[in-house]
Structure formats: structure tokens, C-alpha cells
């Protein structure tokens, strides 16, 4: 038996060799994952376990200052996880279980943070609720200190809860209403059903959302830089270690400490939560979901969610407003100076560079993501799980760490003998002024989303449809182009939108990679915020969001959101 199976694997491998195109694609994907993702991560591991690195470990672990930083990071992660999951749960619950007005508005508000720059909310919060905030001081007359843990949790929970909302909403919709009906039939009260049926069924989703937010929070750099004040976390300490102290080894060691919880969560997500999820098993729900009738519960929840929505609208409104006034929060004279600065002045280079580089990275990331998805779902070969795992590390690993990994890995050209395999990508004299490294990071960070939506979409398509094409004499390429691709159009669209939005708004990974030749908007925004020029920062934000929206329109025109099937049917 063993012999037969080994020969089986040999045969699969030979079958792969016989499809040269597939082999080339596969090798390219492996090359990408190894060079763009694994190499930087291993560089950090290598650096921190080097002779200079190991003593630092000991120092950091025993030093109370660093112990405190780690504690701060964990506390912040836990609080953001809890609050964000709570908000996401409320939004999802209202959408699925309540019959109230403004549900579309709430949905829209929950999605806005996806396309906004990462610390736009933080900046806006300072302007509205800070020491001289228009609301805290202007209306209530208090000099509220928003810098620190409170402000961070407030802003991060509002910035990151989208993913929780979408997650839990999907699960609640998939919950079989027959379960509710069965419970009612057995005489259970609403509250009892909620406690004993709904919550337990959603528990894996809640746990998973909490973990995702936890990781997103501890990985975030932009918000703690803007809003952290004296509350220092690992991400900001890593930043200071490399930008202020120029100590890459120290940064690498701290990165490893930050990496451990992130990877742990990733692995738990991937191999445990996905397995214990009970909801997906029930399959096609039957019956109609019961809505909550109790007016106190109904309108109470509605009021809470509406309040949060208005808060978000207020915060974004302040950004829009602030972009058009002389000094946001202080002098409200109308001006276009900030826009002039971004569109025609010093800021215009950043706008152009960022858009061009994101525009280059986006299609590449979407294609790589979809190709990996295709190979992972459809092809049998040893190590395809590793390929998926490797690609997912691009987002599972905090951006700060990816950035530092790039500095360590690509500060010198990588040569084999006299041949340059990979030129110097980062630092002074980097190739294309460091632009290549930035594009690579954009791709690395965007591939996972395209990959996941590709996998989800491909799993919906009966493999027999592709086999039918093969059986009719079409080869792999024709089958992919004519059959698979049109059917996964929505995934491609989602991949493109996500990749572009992610690239335009990312900061933690590229903050270490910008050079005088290559300017990036998010970093410019940070600069303006740190120098108190909120007006310029807000103008940047508004223009950034506008660019993302235009890009979404372009992708829609080019790709569309419907599968070929729906599209053509509608056209009739």
C-alpha cells in the first residue's frame, strides 16, 4: 500500500510537470511567497536570535519598562477586542433580528472605516474631544485628555469593528431559524433562546472576532503614534527603536515578542475555530427568522446603535469640515488652502506616488490571490496548504514587522556568486527610490484578502463545470479564462477593491520604507498630524477617500460585481 501511494504522489508530480504553464505559475507563486513574505520574516528571526539579539531578549524580558509596554499592549488588545466585538455584535444583531428603520444607513456607516485612512478617526477625535476639542471644550467646557488608553480603545474599536460586524452578521443570517422555532415550540422565552441557543451557536464567531480585533489592535501603529501619548505599546516602541535609535536588532527582538501573540491567534483561527464552527453545518436555513418584538429591547438596541452611527458620522463629518477651515476646531473660516497644498503643493507628490504604486500593486495582488486560491482549491499536490499558509502570513504578521523584515532582508542586494538575484530594495540608493519595496509590501498585505475571497468563491463552483470544459477538449488555460474567471468575477472585484483600499490606507508596513524620492500619503498625513496641521491632514484624508471611491468605480466598470451567469441573464 505504501508503495502504491508513493507512486501516486510521484504520478501527481509528473502530471504537474506535464502542464508546463501550471508549473511556471506555481513556481512563480512559490517564489513570491518565499521572497516577499517568508524571507523578511526569517530575517527578523535570524537577527533577533543572533549574538547581539539574544542578550537583548533577556534584557527586555526582565526590564520593568518593557514588561510594562507588553502589558499595555495586551490590555489595549483585549479592550479593543471586547469593545469592538460588542459593537459589531450589536450592529449585526440589529440588521438580522430587528425590524427597525435606517438599517441601510447603519450598514453603510459600518463599512466606511474600510476605505478611510487608519488614523483619520484618531485625528478627528483629537479635534472633537481632545484638550481643546470643539465638543469636549467647546460645548462641555472640559479639558479632556484623550491621549492614552481610553482614546485608543474608543478610536480603534470604531475603526476596526467592520470585520466583526460582517463576520457575525453572516453567521446570524446562516443560523437556521428552525432552531429558534423549535426552542419556542418547546416553550422557551426570547431571552432564554438568546442565552441558550443564539449565543452558543455564535460563540465561535464571537471568539474569532475578538481574536481578529485583538491582533489588529496590537499590530496597529498609526493610532498609537497619534493618540498614544504616554501610553506606550510594542508597535510604537518598535517604531522608536528603529526611527529614533536606529537599532534594527532591538526592533527585531521586539518584533518577535509582538509576533508571538499574532501568530498564535492566526494558528488558532485557522486550525481550531474554523473547525468548531457549528453554524455552517446546518446548511440551508428553512423558515423565516423571527424578529424581536419587545419594544424596550428593540428600541433600546436601536438607540444604542444609532448613537454609535451618529458618533461615526460626527467624526467623519469633522474630517470633511476640517479640510475646509483654516484651523480645524479653532478657526472656522472657509479655505481651500489645504486642498491646494495636497493637490498642487508639496503634498501632490505623495498623492501621485501613492496612487501610482497602489495602482500597480492592486491588479498584481488580485491576480496572485486568485491564482493561489485556484491552485489551493482545485489542484492536488504536496504542500498546497503551505502555500496558502505562507500567503496568509502577509496579513497575519503585523505590518510593522513586515516593514522591519524588509529593511533587514533587502538592505543589501541578494547575490548568488556574482549574480544579483534581488537588488537592494530599501534604504538609500534603493532601486526605484524604494518604490519596488513599497509595491511588494502593498501586494503582500493585499494578497490574503483576494486569496480568501477567491477560495470562498471557487468552493461554490462545482468542479464538474470545469471538468466538463476539459472533457470537451479545452485545456487548463482556456478553461480558466472562459469558465472559471467569469464565474468568480465577484471575488476578483472584491479582491481589487480591497487591495487598492488596503494599499492606499496602509501605514505600519511602509513607514520604514519611504525614501526622499518616494512619498506616501499616509505617512504625510502622520507628519501633518504630528505637527498639528490638522487641516492638511484632513484634506489628505478626503482626497484619499475620493481616490479610493473613484478606483472602486473603475473596477466596477472593468470587472463588475456579477458573475457571468447573472450578468448575461439580466442583459436579456
Amino acid at each position, binding site marked *: 500500500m505504501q508503495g502504491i501511494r508513493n507512486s501516486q504522489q510521484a*504520478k501527481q508530480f509528473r502530471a504537474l510537470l506535464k502542464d508546463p504553464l501550471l508549473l511556471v505559475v506555481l513556481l512563480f507563486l512559490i517564489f513570491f511567497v518565499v521572497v516577499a513574505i517568508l524571507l523578511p520574516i526569517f530575517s527578523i528571526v535570524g537577527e533577533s536570535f543572533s549574538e547581539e539579539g539574544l542578550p537583548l531578549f533577556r534584557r527586555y524580558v526582565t526590564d520593568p519598562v518593557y514588561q510594562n509596554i507588553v502589558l499595555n499592549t495586551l490590555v489595549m488588545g483585549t479592550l479593543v477586542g471586547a469593545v469592538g466585538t460588542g459593537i459589531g455584535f450589536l450592529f449585526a444583531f440589529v440588521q438580522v433580528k430587528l425590524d427597525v428603520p435606517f438599517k441601510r444607513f447603519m450598514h453603510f456607516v459600518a463599512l466606511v472605516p474600510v476605505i478611510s485612512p487608519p488614523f483619520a478617526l484618531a485625528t478627528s477625535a483629537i479635534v472633537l474631544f481632545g484638550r481643546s476639542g470643539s465638543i469636549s471644550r467647546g460645548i462641555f467646557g472640559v479639558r479632556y485628555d484623550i491621549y492614552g488608553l481610553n482614546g485608543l480603545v474608543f478610536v480603534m474599536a470604531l475603526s476596526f469593528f467592520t470585520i466583526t460586524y460582517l463576520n457575525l452578521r453572516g453567521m446570524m443570517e446562516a443560523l437556521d431559524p428552525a432552531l429558534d422555532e423549535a426552542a419556542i415550540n418547546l416553550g422557551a422565552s426570547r431571552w432564554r433562546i438568546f442565552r441558550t441557543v443564539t449565543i452558543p451557536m455564535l460563540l465561535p464567531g464571537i471568539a474569532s472576532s475578538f481574536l481578529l480585533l485583538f491582533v489588529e489592535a496590537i499590530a496597529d501603529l498609526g493610532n498609537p503614534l497619534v493618540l498614544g501619548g504616554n501610553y506606550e505599546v510594542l508597535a510604537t516602541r518598535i517604531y522608536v527603536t528603529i526611527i529614533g535609535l536606529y537599532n534594527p536588532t532591538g526592533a527585531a527582538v521586539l518584533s518577535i515578542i509582538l509576533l508571538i501573540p499574532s501568530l498564535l491567534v492566526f494558528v488558532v483561527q485557522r486550525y481550531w475555530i474554523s473547525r468548531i464552527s457549528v453554524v455552517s453545518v446546518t446548511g440551508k436555513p428553512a423558515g423565516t427568522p423571527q424578529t424581536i418584538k419587545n419594544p424596550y429591547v428593540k428600541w433600546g438596541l436601536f438607540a444604542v446603535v444609532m448613537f454609535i452611527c451618529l458618533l461615526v458620522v460626527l467624526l467623519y463629518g469633522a474630517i470633511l469640515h476640517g479640510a475646509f477651515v483654516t484651523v480645524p476646531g479653532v478657526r472656522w473660516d472657509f479655505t481651500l488652502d489645504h486642498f491646494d497644498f495636497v493637490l498642487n503643493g508639496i503634498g501632490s507628490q505623495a498623492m501621485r506616488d501613492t496612487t501610482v504604486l497602489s495602482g500597480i500593486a492592486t491588479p498584481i495582488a488580485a491576480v496572485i490571490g486568485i491564482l493561489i486560491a485556484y491552485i489551493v482549491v482545485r489542484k492536488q499536490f504536496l504542500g498546497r496548504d503551505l502555500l496558502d499558509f505562507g500567503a496568509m502570513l502577509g496579513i497575519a504578521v503585523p505590518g510593522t514587522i513586515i516593514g522591519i523584515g524588509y529593511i533587514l532582508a533587502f538592505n543589501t542586494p541578494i547575490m548568488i556568486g556574482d549574480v544579483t538575484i534581488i537588488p537592494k530594495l530599501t534604504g538609500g540608493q534603493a532601486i526605484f527610490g524604494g518604490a519596488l519595496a513599497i509595491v511588494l509590501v502593498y501586494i503582500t498585505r493585499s494578497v490574503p484578502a483576494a486569496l480568501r475571497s477567491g477560495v470562498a468563491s471557487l468552493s461554490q463552483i462545482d468542479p464538474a463545470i470545469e*471538468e*466538463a470544459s476539459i472533457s470537451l477538449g479545452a485545456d487548463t488555460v482556456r478553461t480558466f479564462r472562459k469558465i472559471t474567471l467569469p464565474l468568480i468575477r465577484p471575488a476578483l472585484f472584491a479582491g481589487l477593491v480591497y487591495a487598492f483600499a488596503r494599499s492606499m490606507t496602509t501605514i505600519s508596513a511602509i513607514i520604514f520604507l519611504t525614501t526622499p524620492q518616494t512619498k506616501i500619503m499616509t505617512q504625510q498625513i502622520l507628519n501633518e498630524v504630528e505637527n498639528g496641521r490638522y487641516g492638511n491632514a484632513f484634506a489628505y484624508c478626503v482626497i484619499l477617500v475620493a481616490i479610493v471611491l473613484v478606483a472602486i468605480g473603475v473596477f466596477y466598470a472593468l470587472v463588475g460585481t456579477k458573475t457571468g451567469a447573472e450578468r448575461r441573464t439580466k442583459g436579456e
Partner: protein
Amino acid sequence: MNEQSKQVLLKLVDIVKEFPDRSGHGAVRAVDDVSLDIYDGEFLTLLGPSGCGKTTTLRLIAGFEIPNLGKILLEERDITQQPPNKRDMALVFQNYALFPHMSVYDNVAYGLQSQKMPRAQVKDKVTTSLSIIGLAGLEGRRPNQLSGGQQQRVALARSLVMEPRILLFDEPLSNLDAKLRVQMRSEIHRLQRSLGITSIYVTHDQVEAMALSDRIVVMNKGKIEQIGTPEEIYRYPKTRFVADFIGRANFLPATVSSTQNGSASLTVMGKQIDTRAPFEIEVGTVVTVMLRPEALTLRVDASLPQGVIEQAMYLGTEIEYMVRLDDIVITIVDNDPRKQHMFAEGETIGIDFIPEAVHLLPD
């Protein structure tokens, strides 16, 4: 089909196919040492219970799976490693697998376009094949605008238009409701006979297999149990499994009174009969014989073995009785209910049978 045309088109030689099992350590043997000749122009059916390896065998022939051991020869050429798109075969899938984003016309034209056939010729062929199959006028529809039966026809037309050397079917009728299934069955029968395309058909429905096939291959647990014409399989099953799977069967004990080259005298229910004995049996031992329910009759006759009717069901075309004789229950079908009245449950009655219908089974 007559003897002269019996030219071997496709040959499976000692095929073994294993899949890794769920634990990932062991292996499931889906096809276990199968050898089979398929003749040019014949309609061959792979028949067996779910999970017996029919689909896997078909997919091996189509080239979607590669066997662990063994060879597949098409007209004496080894095609074991040939990729599926290079094989001159077309597979009709269980769930049709129509391209949902293409019109009926584009679905049917797809394979011809893959061959880079000139446009006008494609149009010709597609139109012809759609009209043969009764879909003329529906060219512009999408698959989701068609009924199940129409979708099935498109799938059929899509394969037929390729004029493949071999047509492969994987349970193509199993998703249709009973009436439509019978209708499509005779359609497939008519088409295959008129076009003469060699066809390999997979089903778990024995009636479908009997209705369509020149020959039936009965499979069980990855192995071939028996190959034969529908009549051979029905009348002379080689194993108890085949006897039980094809139609209904009673298994009765019989005593061997004498044997001579290839035949034997047996005592069955007190009656002395002669039957074929293609394998060794010993005089004096008890063996098992098979009797189909329609080969047994009920008659008021005190000289016959007396049974008690435990259940009687009137089914219109036939009456089905369950009759207890000593410690066994025998199924008896009276397929001319008008001839005599229906016996009542609880009645004691004589059991008779047609001696020629007795078929000896190995133990």
C-alpha cells in the same frame, strides 16, 4: 450486436485506484483490479450500489483520475497518462455541469470552438444537434431558464456534438423526476442506437441498466462481480450479490442428489429438478438456489408444500405475496392478477415453481 462487429475499442487492464482515506494515513481502494473490454459501438453499463467505484472507473476512463496500477488502451494505444482534454471522449455529468454564464448555443458550441472549428461549421453542427435533441428555438436561453429535463438535453447535445469516439455518462438521469427519467431513458436509447456511438453508462438503477444496455458490468466494493447481457445477468447471476442486486430473488436450500459434467440433479421444496452446475458441487450436500418471485406460483393443491400467506399486496400489474414456508419467507409475484382471485393473508396454500427457472449459486 452481432459477433463480427465485436472489435475491442477500449481495454482496461488490471486497474487499481486508491484514494487517501479520511485519516490521511491509509487508503481507500475505490477500484480494485478491474479488467474490462469495451466493444466498438456497444452500450455498456457499470451497475452497482453507491460507493462501489463506478464513478471512479468512469473518471479513470475519461482521464480525470490516473490509476495507481494498470493500463488503459484505446484501440491498442496506451492512454493511461493522456490528459482528459486530449482523449476523444465526452462525459455527461450527473448534475449536468452546464456553463451557467453561457447560452444554450454557447454551451453546445464550446467544445467545437475549443477545436478552432470555423464559425459557420460550428453553427451548422450546433443547430443540427440541438434539433436532433429537441431543443431548437432555445439557443438563446441560459441554463437557469431551463427545466431539469431541458438542461439534461443540453448536456447531452453538448457531448454529442463533439462526435466523440466514446460517450461517457455518470448517472445522467438521477436528478430527474420519475416520469421524465423514463422519457429521457428511451430518448438516450433511441439516440445511441441511431448514432451508434460507443457508450459507457454509470447507474445504480438496475431497471435503467437493463433497459439501455447491450452489456452490464455489475460492480461491488471496487471489483467486477459479473459481466453479461441483461438477460444473462438476470437469469444466471454468478453470485448471490448479483442475484440480490438485480431484481428480487428468493434463496432456497436444495440437496444435491447427483452430478454429471456441467449439470446436477437437485431436490428443491420436495421436487426433483435438473439444472446447470458450472462449478464443483458434492453429492449429498445442501446448496443454495435462486428463484425469481415470478417463477413461483400459488395453487390450492394439497400435494404441494404448504405455506402461510403473511402479506398480500395488490399492485395493479401484479400481486405480491410474502409466504412463510417453515422458517423462510418467500416472495411470490403473480403477474397476471386477472387470472385467479387474490389469496387472503393468513390463508394456507400450495407453492409451486417453474423447474427451468431454478438457478444454482455458489456459496
